[in-house]
C-alpha cells in the first residue's frame, strides 16, 4: 500500500540526501580507477529510486543535490562550485538533464501505478458492495450491510449514515470512493423499495387468480374445524356440563383453532410463493436447534407417534430463515402425523453433501404409489389423499432458500420427503 503523501515527503528528501552522500563516497573511492564524468552516472539510480518511491519533488531534489555534490566534490576545480571550461559545463549540463528527466519519468511511473492501484481498489470495493447490495432485499438493512462490506474491503472501520459514507475518525480518507459507494447504497435502497412495492402489487394480482381455486380446495379443510368449534360452543352453554367436560370442550376449540390458524398461515405463504415474493431473511443457525424446537412444539400434540431426531451436531451451521424453515419442518411433521397410523415412527435425519445439507423426514406409514410421488408437491393435487397445500408450501419455501424438495419411497415402506439447503463454503471450512 502507498504511504500517505504527508509522511512520505520528509522521508523522500532524507533518502535523497543519504543516497547522494553514499554514492559520493563510492565515487571518491573509484576516482583513481576510471573516468570522472562517467562516474557521475552512478547518481542516476539514486534519483530513479527516490522518484519511484516518493514522487516528483524528492526526485528533483535528488537530481539537483547530485549535480551540486558532483560539481563541488569532483568537478574542476575541486571543492568549489565554480565550473571551469566548456567540457565541465557540458558534462555537468548533460548529467543534470539526464537526472531531471529520469526523475520526472520515474515520478510519472509512480503516479500512474498509484492511480492504477487506487482504481483497482475502487473497482474491487464497488464490485463487492454491488454484489452484497443486490443480494439484500430489506431496504432498511442496506446501510448496515454497506458498513460491513466497506469496512471489510478497506480494512478500516467505515460508517454509512443517511447517505454519507466516511472512514470512522478519518473523514477525508477514500472520499471519492466512499461518495460513489454512498450513492450506490442510496440507489440500492430505492431499488429495494421499488422491488418490495412491486412484490406487494404482484401478491394482490395473484391472490385474485388464486382465490377461486383456493376457495374450492380449502372449503372442506375450513368447514371441518368450524363445525367442531360450533358444536363445542353450543355445548359449552349447557348448564348441566361437568367441569371436566367443559375443559375438554375448551381444549377441542383451541386445537381446532390452531388447525385453522395453521391453514391460514399456509395459504398466506402459498400466495407469497405464487407471487415470487418469498425472500428468506437468512441467518446462520445450527440446524439441530431448529429441528429440536419444532419437534418440541409438535410432539406433545401427537402422542401416538414417536419422533426420532438424528441430526449430527458437527454439521456446519446453515444460513436459513428461521420462521420459514420452521414452517417447512412443521408442515412435513404434521403431514406425517396425519397420514400414518398410530404407533408408527417419524424420523428426521440430516447429512452434509456437496455443499448442501440434506434433511429427510421419513415415516413408516403406507407410503405413496411411485407414480403419484411427483404430484405430491402440486398445489391442490393431493387434497384428498395427502393435502398438497402444506407440501406446496414446503417446496416453495425450500426453493426460495436455493434448495430442492422431493419425495421418494422409504426403503422398508413409508414415505421419505427430502429437502436440501445450500451451505456457505466459508462456514463449512470454518467449522
Amino acid at each position, binding site marked *: 500500500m502507498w504511504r500517505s503523501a504527508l509522511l512520505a515527503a520528509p522521508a523522500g528528501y532524507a533518502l535523497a540526501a543519504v543516497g547522494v552522500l553514499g554514492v559520493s563516497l563510492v565515487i571518491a573511492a573509484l576516482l583513481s580507477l576510471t573516468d570522472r564524468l562517467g562516474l557521475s552516472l552512478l547518481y542516476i539510480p539514486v534519483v530513479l529510486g527516490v522518484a519511484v518511491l516518493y514522487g516528483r519533488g524528492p526526485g528533483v531534489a535528488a537530481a539537483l543535490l547530485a549535480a551540486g555534490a558532483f560539481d563541488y566534490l569532483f568537478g574542476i576545480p575541486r571543492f568549489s562550485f565554480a565550473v571551469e571550461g566548456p567540457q565541465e559545463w557540458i558534462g555537468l549540463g548533460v548529467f543534470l538533464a539526464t537526472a531531471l528527466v529520469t526523475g520526472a519519468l520515474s515520478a510519472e511511473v509512480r503516479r500512474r501505478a498509484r492511480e492504477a492501484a487506487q482504481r483497482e481498489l475502487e473497482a474491487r470495493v464497488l464490485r463487492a458492495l454491488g454484489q452484497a447490495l443486490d443480494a439484500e432485499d430489506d431496504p432498511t438493512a442496506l446501510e*448496515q*450491510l454497506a*458498513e*460491513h462490506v466497506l469496512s*471489510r474491503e478497506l480494512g478500516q*472501520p467505515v460508517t454509512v449514515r443517511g447517505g454519507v459514507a466516511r472512514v470512522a475518525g478519518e473523514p477525508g480518507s477514500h472520499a471519492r470512493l466512499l461518495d460513489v459507494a454512498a450513492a450506490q447504497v442510496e440507489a440500492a435502497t430505492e431499488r429495494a423499495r421499488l422491488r418490495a412495492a412491486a412484490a406487494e402489487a404482484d401478491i394482490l394480482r395473484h391472490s385474485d387468480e388464486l382465490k377461486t381455486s383456493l376457495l374450492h380446495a380449502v372449503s372442506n379443510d375450513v368447514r371441518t374445524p368450524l363445525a367442531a368449534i360450533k358444536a363445542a360452543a353450543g355445548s359449552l352453554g349447557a348448564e348441566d356440563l361437568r367441569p371436566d367436560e367443559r375443559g375438554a370442550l375448551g381444549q377441542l376449540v*383451541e386445537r381446532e*383453532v*390452531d388447525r385453522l*390458524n395453521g391453514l391460514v*398461515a399456509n395459504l*398466506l405463504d402459498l400466495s407469497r410463493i405464487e407471487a415470487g415474493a418469498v425472500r428468506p*431473511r437468512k*441467518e*446462520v*443457525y*445450527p440446524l*439441530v*436447534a431448529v429441528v*429440536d*424446537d419444532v419437534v*418440541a412444539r409438535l410432539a406433545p400434540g401427537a402422542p401416538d407417534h414417536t419422533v426420532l*431426531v438424528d441430526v449430527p451436531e458437527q454439521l456446519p*451451521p446453515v444460513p436459513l*430463515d*428461521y*420462521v420459514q424453515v*420452521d414452517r417447512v419442518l412443521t408442515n412435513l411433521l404434521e403431514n406425517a402425523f396425519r397420514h400414518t397410523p398410530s404407533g408408527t415412527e417419524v424420523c428426521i435425519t440430516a447429512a452434509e453433501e456437496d455443499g448442501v445439507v440434506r434433511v429427510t423426514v421419513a415415516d413408516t406409514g403406507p407410503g405413496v404409489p411411485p407414480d403419484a410421488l411427483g404430484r405430491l408437491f402440486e398445489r391442490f393435487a393431493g387434497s384428498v389423499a395427502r393435502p398438497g397445500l402444506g407440501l406446496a408450501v414446503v417446496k416453495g419455501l425450500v426453493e426460495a432458500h436455493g434448495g430442492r424438495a422431493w419425495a421418494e419411497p422409504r426403503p422398508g415402506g413409508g414415505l421419505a420427503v427430502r429437502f436440501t439447503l445450500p451451505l456457505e463454503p466459508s462456514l463449512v471450512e470454518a467449522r
Partner: protein
Amino acid sequence: MTVPGARVMVVDDEPDILRALRASLGHHGYQVLSAANGREALELLAQGEPDALVVDLGLPQIDGLELIRRVRATSSLPIVVLSVRDDERTKIEALDLGADDYVTKPFSVQELMARLRAALRRAPPGDASGRSVLRAGPIALEPETRRVTVDGREVHLTPIEYDLLRVMIGQPNKVFTHRMLLERVWGGAYTAAAHYLHVHVGNLRRKVEPNPRAPRYLVTEPGVGYRIRPDEP
C-alpha cells in the same frame, strides 16, 4: 400465581377481543381498563398509570408502535404486545422500542396470563444488576467474579458466551431481539463474529442447559430473538 388487584390496560380495536380479555383478565383477579385506540389509551394513561399495558399493534389513529414509543418516553411500565403472525418485523420493532414481551394472535388465554404475570413480576431493569448472584433454574452467574455454575458445578464460558448469558439473565423473561444482543454483546458493530450469534447461543446451551437438545432456560423466540425463562416459582 396471580397478581391480585393489578391494574391492566388493554388496547385493541376489536370489541370482541376486548370483551374476551376483560372477562378472562377479570376472572384472574386483575382490574381491567380498556381502550379502543391509541388516543384513548393516552388519555386514560394521563389519568393514572396502570400496572401493565397490553397493546395490539394494528391500531387506528395512533398505532401500537407509536403508543409504545410515547409510553416508553416517560414510563417503564410492563408492556405486552399482541400481534399477528407474519409480522415479525413489526413485532421486533415493538420490542426494540421497549415492549417487554409479545403473544401472537390467536393466542391462548393461559399464554397471555403467563406472559403478563412474568412481565409484572420482573424487577425494573437496573435492579437486577445490583444483585450478587443472578439465577435461572440451576444456572447461577456472579457478575463480580464472572463465575458461572450449573447445579453448583463451575462451567467455563467464552467471553461472548458469558456476555450473552449476563445480558439475558439480568432480565429474565424479557425477549431480547437479535439487534439488542448484537448491540449489547458486540457493541452494535455489524461484524463477521456477530454472524454467528445463533451458533454462540447453541454453544452456550451446550454448556448451561441440563438437556441442550430441549432447552428449558435459554429459549428461542422464532425469528425474533431469545429469552431466559427461569423456573416458575
